[in-house]
C-alpha cells in the first residue's frame, strides 16, 4: 500500500534525524545518572546561591528590557508610518549580527575608567584626571544591557511578523466597540501574538543562560560561569555537566508549562475575514519620537559597537587583509550558507511531518532539541565530540577519524546547535496556516510531498528565509563547537576574533569581528527585500483578502 508506506516514512524520518540530533543533549543529561562528587556540597554551601540568584536577576532584567524594546519597535513599524521607517524596519534586525561578548568588550572599551567615552568626556568637559562620568559596566546591569540590545531582534522579528498577520477587521471591531489605541494593542493584539512572542523570548532566555563570554568578561558569577569554574577549576566535568543538566531541566519545565498554558487557546485567522492592517501616519513630534524609539536600540546594539570596532581595526596596521583573512572569511561563508540551507530544509520537513502525522513522540523530541539550545556552548560541544568520536570509533570502525575534526563534523555540529532557531520559526509559521487548508488540499487529492511543495511551502517562504537568516548569523558567530571540532589549521572569523579577544587584543580582534557583522548583513538584506515585496495588499503569507 503506497499510501500507508508514505505515512510511516514520514513518521520515521523526523524521528531518526531528531534522535541523532538529540544525542549530544542526552549525553549531557546522562551525567545525572552518574556519581555525584563531593564537590556538590562545596557548591551548595558556598557558591550555588550566588550563581542561581545572579542568573535569575539577569534573566528577569533581560526579559523585561527585551520585551519593551522588541514589542514597542515592532508595534510602531507595523502599525504606523513615520520618518525613516523604511530604513528602521530592517535596521532593527542588525544587532543580531553582533555576538554578545563583542558588545561586552566594546562596552568596557568605551566605559571603563580609561575607556574612550570617559576619556572623551574628560577632554570635552575639561574635567580632572580622576573624574569618571560613565558608571562602571562590569556588573550585572551592564550584562543585562548587553544581552538585551543584542538579543531583542528575536522578539522583534517574531512579533513583527505576528503583528503584520493580524486582521484589520478585528482591530477595527475593537475600535468601534470603544477601545483606545493602547487597549487594542493590549487586549486584542497581545493575546493573539503571545505564542510567537514567547517563542522569541525562549530563544533570548536560552542564549542568555548559555552565554559564557560576556558574563565572564564582566566577572559576574552566574550559573554558566559556575559550570565552567567547576570544569576548569575543580577539574570536574561530570559535576559541570550535572549543573548544565539542571539548567536544561529548569528551561524545560518553563517551556512545557508555557506550552500547556496555551494548549487550549489557539488562534488562527480564517481567510474570509482577513484584511491587512492599515498604517496610521504619524507627523511632527510623534514622528520624531517614533523614530527615536526605533533608532535607539540600533544605535546601542549596532552602530556603537561597529564604530568602536572600526576605530580599533583602523588604528592597528591594517595587516589583517592578508591571504589568511580571505581563507577564513571564505570558510565562514560557505559553512554558514550550507548549514543554513540544510537546517532550514530539515526543520521544514520535520515540522511538516509532525503536522501531518501528529506524532507526539517526534513532537516531544523536537521540543527537547529546542531546549538543548540552553546548554552552554562548550558543554554541548563536548557532547557533540563524544557523539562524533563514538561514530568514528564504533560505527565507522575506527579506520581513521572521519567526523571528528572534519568539515562534515563541523556542519553536523552547527545543525545540532541551530536547529532550535529554524524550528521555532517553522513552528509558528505552520501554526498560522489554518488546518482547514490541509483538509481542502486533501479533498483536492493533494498529500505528502505534493501538499508540502504546492500548498505549505509557498505560505512558508518567509519562515524559510527567516530561519536561513537566524541560522546563518548563528553559525557565523558560533565559537565553542568550532574551536573544539575544527580540522587542523582551519579558522573561521569567530575563531580569529576569539583568539585575539581572549587576550584582550581588541585592535586585532576588530577586523574579523567586523567581517562577521558584514556577513551577517547579507541574509538580513535579502530577507528585508523579500518582506518588502510581499508586503503590499495581501498578507505576506499569501492569503488573498
Amino acid at each position, binding site marked *: 500500500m503506497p499510501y500507508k508506506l508514505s505515512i510511516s516514512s514520514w513518521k520515521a524520518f523526523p524521528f531518526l534525524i531528531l534522535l541523532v540530533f538529540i544525542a549530544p543533549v542526552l549525553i549531557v543529561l546522562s551525567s545525572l545518572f552518574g556519581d555525584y562528587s563531593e*564537590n556538590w556540597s*562545596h557548591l551548595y554551601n*558556598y*557558591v550555588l546561591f550566588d550563581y542561581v540568584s545572579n542568573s535569575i536577576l539577569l534573566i528577569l532584567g533581560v526579559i523585561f528590557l527585551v520585551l519593551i524594546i522588541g514589542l514597542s519597535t515592532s508595534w510602531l513599524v507595523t502599525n504606523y508610518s513615520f520618518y525613516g521607517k523604511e530604513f528602521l524596519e530592517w535596521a532593527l534586525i542588525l544587532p543580531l549580527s553582533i555576538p554578545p561578548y563583542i558588545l561586552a568588550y566594546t562596552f*568596557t572599551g568605551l566605559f*571603563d*575608567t*580609561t575607556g574612550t567615552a570617559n576619556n572623551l568626556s574628560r577632554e570635552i568637559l575639561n574635567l580632572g584626571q*580622576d573624574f569618571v562620568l560613565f558608571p562602571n559596566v*562590569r556588573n550585572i546591569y551592564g550584562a543585562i544591557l548587553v544581552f538585551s540590545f543584542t538579543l531583542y531582534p528575536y522578539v522583534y522579528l517574531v512579533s513583527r511578523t505576528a503583528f503584520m498577520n493580524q486582521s484589520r477587521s478585528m482591530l477595527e471591531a475593537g475600535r468601534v466597540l470603544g477601545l483606545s489605541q493602547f487597549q487594542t494593542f493590549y487586549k486584542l493584539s497581545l493575546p493573539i501574538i503571545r505564542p510567537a512572542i514567547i517563542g522569541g523570548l525562549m530563544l533570548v532566555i536560552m542564549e542568555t543562560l548559555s552565554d559564557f563570554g560576556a558574563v*565572564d568578561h*564582566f*566577572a559576574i*558569577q552566574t550559573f554558566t*560561569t559556575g559550570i*565552567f*569554574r567547576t570544569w*576548569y*577549576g*575543580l*577539574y*570536574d*566535568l561530570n559535576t559541570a555537566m550535572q549543573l548544565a543538566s539542571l539548567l536544561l531541566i529548569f528551561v524545560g519545565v518553563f517551556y512545557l508549562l508555557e506550552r500547556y498554558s496555551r494548549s487550549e487557546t489557539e488562534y488562527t485567522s480564517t481567510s474570509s475575514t482577513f484584511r491587512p492592517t492599515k498604517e496610521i501616519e504619524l507627523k511632527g513630534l510623534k514622528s520624531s519620537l517614533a523614530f527615536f524609539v526605533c533608532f535607539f536600540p540600533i544605535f546601542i546594539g549596532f552602530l556603537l559597537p561597529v564604530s568602536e570596532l572600526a576605530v580599533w581595526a583602523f*588604528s592597528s596596521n591594517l595587516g589583517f587583509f592578508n591571504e589568511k583573512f580571505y581563507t577564513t572569511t571564505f570558510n565562514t561563508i*560557505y*559553512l554558514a*550558507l*550550507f548549514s543554513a*540551507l540544510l537546517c532550514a530544509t530539515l526543520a521544514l520537513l520535520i515540522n511538516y511531518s509532525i503536522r501531518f502525522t501528529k506524532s507526539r513522540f517526534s513532537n516531544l523530541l523536537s521540543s527537547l532539541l529546542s531546549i538543548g539550545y540552553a546548554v552552554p556552548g*562548550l558543554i554541548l*560541544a*563536548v557532547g557533540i*565530540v*563524544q557523539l*562524533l*568520536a*563514538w561514530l*568514528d*570509533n564504533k560505527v565507522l570502525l*575506527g579506520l*581513521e*577519524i572521519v567526523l*571528528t*575534526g*572534519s*568539515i*562534515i563534523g563541523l556542519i553536523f555540529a552547527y545543525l545540532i546547535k541551530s536547529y532550535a532557531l529554524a524550528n521555532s520559526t517553522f513552528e509558528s509559521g505552520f501554526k498560522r496556516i489554518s488546518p482547514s487548508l490541509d483538509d481542502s488540499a486533501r479533498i483536492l487529492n493533494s498529500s505528502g510531498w505534493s501538499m508540502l511543495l504546492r500548498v505549505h511551502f509557498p505560505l512558508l517562504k518567509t519562515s524559510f528565509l527567516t530561519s536561513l537568516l537566524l541560522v546563518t548569523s548563528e553559525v557565523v558567530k558560533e565559537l*565553542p563547537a568550532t*574551536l*573544539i*571540532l*575544527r*580540522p*587542523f*589549521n582551519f579558522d573561521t572569523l569567530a575563531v580569529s576574533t576569539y*583568539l585575539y579577544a581572549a*587576550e*584582550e*587584543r581588541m*585592535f586585532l580582534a576588530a577586523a574579523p569581528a567586523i567581517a562577521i557583522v558584514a556577513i551577517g548583513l547579507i541574509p538580513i538584506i535579502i530577507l528585508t527585500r523579500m518582506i518588502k515585496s510581499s508586503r503590499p495588499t495581501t498578507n505576506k503569507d499569501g492569503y488573498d483578502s
Partner: protein
Amino acid sequence: MGKIFLMKLLYKIPLFSFLFIIAFETLYASEVNIYTSRHYDSDESLYAEFTKETGIKVNVISGKGSALLERLKAEGKNSPADIFFTVDAGNLWKVQKEGLFSRINSKNITSIVPKNLRGPNDEWVATAKRARVIFYNPKKVSESEIKNLSYEDLAKPEWKGRIAIRSSSNMYNQSLVASLISNLGEKVTEEWAKNFVANFARKPQGNDRSQIIAVANDEADIAIANSYYLGIMLSRSKGDEQLEAAKKVKMHFPNQQNRGSHINISGAGILKNSPNKDNAVSFLEFLLSERVQNYMVNISFEYPVLKDVLPNPIMAAFGTDFKVDEVSVASYGELNPQAVKLMDRSGWQ
C-alpha cells in the same frame, strides 16, 4: 538554472574541501600535529621556522585546554594529535593524570630542563617560565613598604583597599594559591586568603594587564600579575597608552628573603597515541634549542628555561637572578581544585 547550479555547487563544497584536506594531509608525509591552548601570534612564526628547518609540516588546532583534553579523550587511540602545548602547569597535570602523555625519552631534553620544571616521570617539560609578581606605584608605596614584601604580607591590614588582582576563576591565581597551600598548608593559606580578599581595592575584574593599568591610574597601589605583561606593555607593541601606564609602575619579586617568587610555565608533552613520535621529539628539542629559546623570550617576554639564555633586555632590567620558588610546578595541578574551593570559601570572586 543558475540557482540550481549554485545549489549543486554549494552542496559539493564541503565534500570537496573534505577530500582536499585528506589529499593534502597524505601529501605531507612528514608532519607533526599540535593541540595547543596557547594562541600567540609568535607561536605561528615558531611553527613556520620549524618547518623551514626540518621540512616537517606543523598542523595546529588551538582552543581551551580543558576542551581539547575532552577531544583527545574522545578520539582515543585514533587521535591524530602528537603534542599538547599549553600554558599553566595545571593544564599539563590534567593530561598527565588521564594517562595521555608518554614519557619523553630524549636525553637532549631531560638533561637541560631542571627537575622541578618537568612532569614527575618526564611526561612533559616546561618551554618557558613566567613569575607572578607584584607591581606597585612608587608614588603610593614607600621603599620600606615594598622592600622584602612577600605574598604573605599582603594579608596585613596596612594594605586595606590597596590591592588589585583579577578573579579567582583565573588559572594563574589558582596556581598561585595552590603553591601557597603546598608551602604553608591549607589552614594558614585560608586564613591568609580571607584577609587578603579584605584588602582588595575593587571587585576582581579584567585581565592581568588591566591590574597593572589600575595601578598606573591610581585605582590601586599594588597589583599581582604575570611578569611578561609589563614587558609587552613597555615594548610599545600595545600602543603608547599602555607604554605610558607601564612606565608609571615598578616590578617587585616577592619572597626573596625565603622561598622565592611563584613561577608558572608554558610547557608541552608528547601524547601516548601520537602517530608521529619522532617528529614530536624533534619539535620539543627545537623549542628547547638555544636559538629558539632566545627568540621566544624576546617575543613573549617570558623567562627562558635554559640557563645560558638571557631574558629580553626589558625584563632583564628588573633583574635576572631573582630567587624562584622551587616547589615542583607539577604540584599545582594536584592542588588546584583545593585552591579553588579555598578561594570560594574566602569570598574571592
